[in-house]
């Protein structure tokens, strides 16, 4: 059953399915998290005042809560916020659009590289229904937007349109930190391939190269001056003192200062070993197929990054793709190897978010595996092949429903706080009742509530710019804001709370029983509201 151009309706059909899964209830599910709120609110702030929440004029990095976010996504969100207002949907829409485009780019890239329309369609289909990709398409995940840009740029290089490609590659680094590592590597590799096959000349690269450097200067300068580097020291590989302790432990056990002992137990050796372990974690089959990421906000309960049984097409697909196209196999393999680099340089690994590009090459391998399985099935005679096909589709469908069930029914209920569930209601309550109290205390038990407050109340940017004050950064380099007008984020001792106060607490213990309670979707108390 070869797929031809006659089957032109299949791709739009797949994209529509992808869009439906990625957009159902997107305005309220999952609940907006502080990172998304920060990107959205800063877009709003820049739109109305040309400055971010801290009053910085058209920044390239948002200081936000001390984590120096690349500002690209906020600028991208400006037109959406302008048209739709400051709502979760408006902030999430750009990434939604780019995630659908990603699927289209992958389709085009596979088609262009292998001339195999069936494989291209299967790749689009697999990516559309992939847990990893769906997860980071639903929400303002700038990692996914940056990945989409890199895919577009890759497609452009492969079509030998170097100049636009170089612009897009550099642009992706304005969106997400990880892209600053994998995008240049990928771009260099693609150019190297083009040069080797003599499809482009060395001379034709000079002007794009100069332009690239010019384009990259602002973001590099801003990274260096905005404290991005200091953030890396907070979350980077060296923030983990484990290897250092291990080196000391081993040297102490040897109780010898001979040169060979000092060499083999050197902390640099230990850090290299630790880095290798972190890197390899992204290829742990349990991470990929059974448990997924460990960070609740990056996962759905009891689902891997891929569907459980897709390890079978992955294993079949690796040699299969090699036989379909060697050059495309090499490109896919290269992307596989560089994708976890950025994540392995941070102290928390594996990270589905930071290693997001890995979803693309693995999807392509898996698709090649599916295609191989379909080819084998097609070789059998009619009734047998039909039975096999029905069986395969049923299993495939089952695992897709399994994932969607996990994502839509269990996820927010399992990890309500990781998803900042019901903050919208708590802040609405605060807004409705603030007029009756002199002081308001709001829990800072979870993340950075101030930015959610700014977002949900559409707080006037000029007012916050004049009073915002970040706390000193914590161990990981994160700060927060403690005071906005008469609202304090953080709950002091009951005795030091003045009269006429409204207190919105999480599970902090209070001497009185709550006046009212906001429940999470799992019916457990989320916010306890007290008055004094």
């Amino acid at each position, binding site marked *: 059953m070869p797929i031809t151009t006659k089957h032109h309706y299949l791709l739009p059909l797949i994209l529509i399915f992808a869009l439906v899964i990625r957009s159902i209830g997107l305005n309220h599910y999952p609940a907006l998290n502080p990172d998304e709120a920060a990107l959205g609110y800063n877009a709003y702030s820049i739109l109305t005042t040309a400055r971010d929440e801290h009053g910085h004029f058209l920044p390239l990095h948002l200081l936000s809560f001390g984590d120096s976010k690349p500002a690209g996504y906020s600028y991208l969100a400006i037109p959406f916020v302008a048209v739709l207002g400051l709502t979760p949907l408006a902030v999430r829409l750009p990434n939604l659009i780019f995630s659908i485009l990603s699927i289209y780019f992958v389709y085009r890239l596979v088609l262009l590289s292998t001339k195999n329309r069936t494989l291209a369609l299967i790749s689009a289909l697999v990516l559309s229904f992939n847990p990893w990709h769906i997860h980071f398409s639903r929400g303002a995940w700038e990692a996914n937007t940056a990945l989409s840009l890199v895919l577009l740029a890759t497609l452009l290089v492969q079509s030998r349109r170097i100049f636009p490609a170089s612009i897009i590659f550099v642009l992706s680094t304005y969106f997400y930190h990880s892209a600053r590592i994998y995008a240049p590597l990928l771009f260099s590799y693609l150019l190297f391939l083009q040069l080797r096959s003599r499809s482009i000349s060395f001379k034709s690269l000079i002007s794009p190269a100069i332009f690239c450097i010019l384009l990259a200067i602002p973001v590099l300068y801003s990274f260096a001056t905005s404290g991005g580097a200091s953030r890396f020291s907070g979350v980077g590989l060296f923030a983990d003192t484990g290897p250092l302790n*291990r080196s000391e*432990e*081993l040297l102490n*056990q*040897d109780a010898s200062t001979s040169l060979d*002992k000092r060499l*083999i137990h050197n902390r640099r050796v230990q850090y290299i*070993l630790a880095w*290798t*372990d972190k890197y*390899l*974690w992204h*290829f*742990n*089959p*349990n991470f990929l*197929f*059974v*448990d997924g990421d460990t960070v609740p906000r990056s996962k759905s309960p*009891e689902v891997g990054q891929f569907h*459980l049984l897709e*390890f079978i097409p992955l294993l079949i697909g*690796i*040699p299969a793709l*090699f036989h379909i196209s060697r050059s495309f196999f090499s490109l896919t393999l290269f992307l596989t190897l560089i994708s976890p680099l950025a994540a392995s340089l941070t102290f928390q690994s594996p990270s589905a978010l930071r290693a997001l590009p890995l979803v693309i090459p693995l999807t392509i391998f898996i698709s090649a595996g599916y295609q191989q399985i379909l080819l084998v099935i097609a070789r059998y005679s009619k009734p047998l092949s039909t039975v096999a096909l029905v069986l395969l589709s049923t299993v495939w469908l089952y695992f897709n429903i*399994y994932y969607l*069930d*996990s994502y839509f*029914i*269990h996820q927010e*209920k*399992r990890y309500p706080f990781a998803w900042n569930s019901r903050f919208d209601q708590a802040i609405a309550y605060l807004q409705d009742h603030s007029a009756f109290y002199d002081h308001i205390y709001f829990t800072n038990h979870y993340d950075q509530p101030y930015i959610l407050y700014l977002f949900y109340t559409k707080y006037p940017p000029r007012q916050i710019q004049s009073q915002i004050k970040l706390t000193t950064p914590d161990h990981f380099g994160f700060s927060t804001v403690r005071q906005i007008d008469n609202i304090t984020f953080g709950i002091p001792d009951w005795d030091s709370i003045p009269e006429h106060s409204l207190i919105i607490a999480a599970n902090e213990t209070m001497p009185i029983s709550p006046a009212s309670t906001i429940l999470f979707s*799992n*019916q457990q108390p989320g916010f306890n509201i007290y008055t004094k």
Partner: protein
Amino acid sequence: MKYTHLAITIITAIGLILRSIYTHTPPLLWDEAALGYNAYSILHTLRDEHGQLLPIVFRSFGDFKPGAYIYLSLPFIYTFGLNQFSVRLLSILAGTLSIPLLYFLIARQTKNRQLAIISSFILATSPFHIHFSRGAWETNLNTFLILLGIFLFTQRRYFYSSLIFGLTLWTYQSAKLLTPLIILSLIVLFPPRQIKSIFFRFILPFSFFLLPIIAGIVFSTDANRLRVISLLSYSRPVSEQQLITNEGSPTDYSLFYQPAIFLTRNFLSRYFNHFSPQFLFTIGDWQNSRHSAVYSGQFLILLLPFLLFGIFQKPKSKSPLHTLMLIWLLIAPLPAALTRDSVSSVRSHTLIIPLIFFIALGVTSLTTKLKLPPNLSLISLALLLLLPLYLYLELYYNHTAKKNPTEYLYGYQSAINYTIKEQSKYDQIIFTPFYGQPYIFYLFFSQYPPLKYQALNSAVSSGLDVGQVDQVDNIFFSTPHLGYLQSTSKTLLIFSHDEILRQGIDKQPIFDQFVPLSPINSYSTFYAYHN
């Protein structure tokens, strides 16, 4: 021709040295002491420690050890006496002989001497294999026997092959699952010329070994051990079931979270753990620190790229060996994945052979691709592995026991020898049971007369499962307390470090009079004190 014979001799010698030097480390474990003492007991009385006449399965601590290791150890115990080295010698030899055996299997089947040499070199220097060859591990003997059975089968020595395969069933529990699967693959992949001959010369003698096991599983309680540790007995906690049902609905629970799906996920998770880079290359067996060296994977990390390259190679020769190795690779973790532990290098031990085959295939394919001369590939591989191997051996010899002295039962020998030396001076000795089964170490290191112990044992615990032995002669195996010293009788107390801390003795002035019996790190695992 000359070169390969010289090479395999040198490689085997290296393998032997790595497996037999510094036999004092690691310290003897419970199972090793039990294997040794039961062999000693059989040798002198034809009965095991419980007085059973020539048992096939040894009751030991109530864990029912298959008897092959004990019976095959008899000549070594007879020749060298009962000591740490003689108990381990069988495993050392099985491990060492696996090296030329793997060479001959691959060389005869693939006609690729280079592949065979590289495989045997990687086996000789593999941490996974060195670790289990240095102790009396039944699983290591089992892997050797399976390899031997396969070799004999491929040489059409069906009768001998069936005897060896039969023996594996009485060597290690996981062979009961693995051996039949491997035999099935062998019969399909290496079809014999005549069906009749395979039936009479192979299947019939093998059934002779197999039937008692099937009967045992059906009729008796011997298989309890398998059932206790099996994955199936481990289900989702009720509170978690309730949580999931509350989030969704009972229908949702039975569709997506019911026990069958939970067990499938758990099984796959355990199965995958054996193929995880963490188990194979970076962390090793994280479930049990006795099963791998500290901070070391099962294989040297530099071999990882070769494994990836080798696994996707197409078979180079007509021999079905490649397919057999692929099947073996896939079934080897099954016995481990079906038990409760998330990962187990002991139960998945045969994984070594197929993994090394594919690593070696990766090495040779790459050298062919790079057009390196074949002789150079072994030397460059040896040079490449020199540093990681040194790193591993240093961690193994100097750090593994120091990192986890308690798990490695560090100091049992010195504490028991001290006790034996002082035994006659005291009315009673209280010896700590903190590190588990102290009685077997006493029997082992004192070479206690088996006949005497059997009489004692039957009086103490006739008919019951032996969890723990409380007393042998004037030695009581129970937690020592300083209060025992107030009685008039002369008493010697042997404490564990943990008990010293728990009873707060280290903060009392009396602690200065405690004799550290087995100093390690900044403390001692055993302390002696008397009045």
